[in-house]
């Protein structure tokens, strides 16, 4: 288990409500990618199905699903936006 890293996942809107929190700390294997985090989320969130149009931010900047994670990273799951 020494190879695990700890990352924080930020959730908003429907995903936040499904998780019951806007911030989850997860232990995942080292070098897990941003896009692979979905499979580590609680069942109540995954029940939603991977949302169409989901984008990702890594440490507050846009990133792509293939980006590898490091210990202490923060990933945001960004649903299709509707501000304005």
């Amino acid at each position, binding site marked *: 288990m020494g190879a695990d890293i700890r990352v924080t996942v930020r959730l908003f*809107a*429907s995903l936040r409500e499904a998780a019951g929190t806007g911030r989850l700390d997860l232990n995942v294997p080292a070098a897990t990618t941003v896009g692979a985090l979905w499979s580590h989320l609680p069942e109540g969130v995954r029940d939603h199905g991977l949302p169409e149009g989901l984008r990702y*931010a890594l440490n*507050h900047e846009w990133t792509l699903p293939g980006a590898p994670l490091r210990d202490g990273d923060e990933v945001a799951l960004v649903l299709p*936006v509707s*501000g*304005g």
Partner: protein
Amino acid sequence: MIALLDTPIDHTALMAAVADPEHGGLATFLGLTRRESDERAVTALRYEAYDELALSELTAIASEAEAAYGARVAVVHRRGEVAVGEASVAVAASARHRPAAFAACRYVIDELKVRAPIWKQTVHADGGTTWIDGCASGDPAHAHAHGSAPHA
């Protein structure tokens, strides 16, 4: 002035923020909560933002408009509940002449709507709520309403 606000928008302060003696045109846009969405009565919209990225995205959009149109830009967006008739978003842009002021203002609101990580939830008069975020919600009759947001 670029901000996410929990209190009503001060439109006058927004205009003052872009005032410039070299600028003869000042355009503003306000997005307001409309009282109906998909033929269903609405009492309010609730906004949630991913604050860090929303602010950096708004800053980037404003800088792009300023560079492209020689404008000065201010943009603010509400968080939390915004009642019918209240503004959820406001943009002010000044430039030497009106075409650039209008163009900069429009650029900012159009880009904000596709790029800023901010979401709205419709609060219906019957007490139901619907997130406008591309997810099927707990309100199946009106789930997934992207593109039919109740204003602007």
